[in-house]
């Protein structure tokens, strides 16, 4: 299926999410421009990865999709709903369509609730009144995420579970209402190598089985090719490159994407013999981002008198959309 044949599930339109910065005694001191003009469509059943360094705005984007942040400007449209305009009961109902898997599984689970209580909660909130029906659905979802034998796990509390098992509970909770979209924010970054792969494969299997759309957020490019169809690379509040996953790992176009790839290790003893070429410096402040291209102070391919002056916009380069003057 090509993208065009699929229906759009979620449409992000020129989204800006700014947080007001206040300094004690001074009042308003500017804005943290966590998301600063992001546009994309996500189709039914599609998997995308959003890749970028810590602080580039990934979680702020996600929270806005979940309706936890209000857009400062621009829109989040889910099917035909304008998410930014929702509140109260309508917002609650909307959230039932979205599963959320966060980075720290332990922090995501209430320590005083056992697995059964944790998994029943979304059902209770969404009006599944019949206790037998709730138990049936809890057991089914536990089978799905392989928390088996189910009876061994139903009454366990989070601290009795390994990190991988805790993350299975979080995933089970995220999918129990059979959402159309699952947002997974660094779902495996706290887990061991082998458990990471196990959890990612579990998510992929569920995604295929239920035809859910998934937004996978990570800073680790090496996992994206096994897990998403398209990759969006974020830098300092902007999406700077969008491309199909195979195309991006074989041929990154944006200098920042290339830098991320160069910094990613595969296990190879020769790695120890050379220094890695890396862009200098650190990501910029989102209060006063650099003018022109935000990556220009670190970019090895910077074009003088252009990149530091004019902000690049999305340019087509093969099957990539790249926000970089090199592709003009």
């Amino acid at each position: 299926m090509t993208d065009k044949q699929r229906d759009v599930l979620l449409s992000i339109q020129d989204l800006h999410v700014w947080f007001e910065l206040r300094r004690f005694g001074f009042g308003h001191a500017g804005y943290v421009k966590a998301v600063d003009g992001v546009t994309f469509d996500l189709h039914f059943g599609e998997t995308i990865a959003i890749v970028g360094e810590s602080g580039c705005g990934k979680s702020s984007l996600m929270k806005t999709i979940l309706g936890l942040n209000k857009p400062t400007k621009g829109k989040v449209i889910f099917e035909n709903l304008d998410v930014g305009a929702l509140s109260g009961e309508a917002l609650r109902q909307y959230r039932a369509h979205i599963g959320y898997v966060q980075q720290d599984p332990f922090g995501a689970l209430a320590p005083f609730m056992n697995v059964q209580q944790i998994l029943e909660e979304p059902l209770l909130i969404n009006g599944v009144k019949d206790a037998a029906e709730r138990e049936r659905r809890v057991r089914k979802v536990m089978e799905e995420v392989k928390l088996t034998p189910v009876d061994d796990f139903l009454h366990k509390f989070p601290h009795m579970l390994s990190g991988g098992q805790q993350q299975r509970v979080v995933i089970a909770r995220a999918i129990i209402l059979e959402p159309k979209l699952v947002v997974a924010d660094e779902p495996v970054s706290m887990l061991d190598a082998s458990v990471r792969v196990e959890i990612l494969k579990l998510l992929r299997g569920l995604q295929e089985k239920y035809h859910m759309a998934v937004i996978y957020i990570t800073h680790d490019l090496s996992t994206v090719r096994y897990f998403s169809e398209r990759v969006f690379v974020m830098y300092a509040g902007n999406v700077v490159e969008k491309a199909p996953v195979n195309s991006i790992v074989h041929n990154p176009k944006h200098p920042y994407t290339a830098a991320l790839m160069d910094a990613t290790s595969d296990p190879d003893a020769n790695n120890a013999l050379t220094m890695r070429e890396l862009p200098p410096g650190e990501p910029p402040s989102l209060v006063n981002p650099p003018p022109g291209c935000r990556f220009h102070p670190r970019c090895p391919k910077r074009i003088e008198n252009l990149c530091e002056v004019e902000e690049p916009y999305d340019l087509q380069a093969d099957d990539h959309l790249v926000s970089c003057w090199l592709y003009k």
Partner: protein
Amino acid sequence: MSKDTLLRVEDLVLHFKTQKGSVRAVDGVFFDLAHKEAVVILGESGCGKSSLAKAILRLLPRNIDKYSGKIYLEGDETMAMDDENYRQNVRWVRMSLVPQAAMNSLNPVLKVGDQVAEPMIIHHGVKKEEALIQAAKMFQHVGVPVDFLDRYAFELSGGMRQRVAIAMSLVTAPALVILDEPTSALDVLTQANIFNVLKRLKQELEVSFVLITHDIATSSELADRVAVMYAGQILEVSDAHRFFNEPLHPYSRMLMASVPRLRANTEPEFITGQPPSLLDPPKGCRFADRCPKRFAKCAEEPPVVNVDGIQVKCWLYTS
């Protein structure tokens, strides 16, 4: 022991006393390390890596059930030293530690420069001015601007704080630094930067590293040798080239196969099951219930076999 051996660990044991019984966190660990080399201790969460670091540096909690074995530092048997001698002449002076999550444990109310200088004042008895000069030198080595000496931890990025923690471990000029998960909480670019720093330090300061990590891919950035740890024990000690090409132990092989690769098209495979409890580990091979190669012999504890210089604790390699 060759003259070049900086550290040799033999049959190191550290068990903790708990209400449920003895936790065998370190249970017969061995490896050795030459001058100017880095050995990686690779293992899953909870296998005893941080406990091993504590055992080597004698940074022990109160609830010790058993602490034994031999540690030779440049030929000196440190386990035989009394605490006073050890504290004055070994820890910080000849071996130091960058603890797990060090970058989040810096003192929030002290300038980072003063914190880096502190071990010099305590362990080498130098004056503060002199210690600060040394701290400034260390900042240069780890790539932190010298004017950051006067800053506080909260003013620094994660990567910069981790560099400060590394500078602190180096200021007393130890021959060996143990790094416990130094990059696990950091982004790819920051990780890669820290590894560049460590590579440079290894050459410039001729320091050796024990790098503790669960991240196989980045561990190859620094490794000369690799020791694989599982459920408190070492299953394989190998040189990095042979290890990353093709390790010998079934667990090592499966670990390698679980690594997602950016530059290859292999589908990563996970290891089913979980490591055993350290309260009551199996009598035989501790990896047996997850091992596809298991056979009758594996119900007994496997010996450590030397295969062309690689040490493997597995029955498959006994002839």
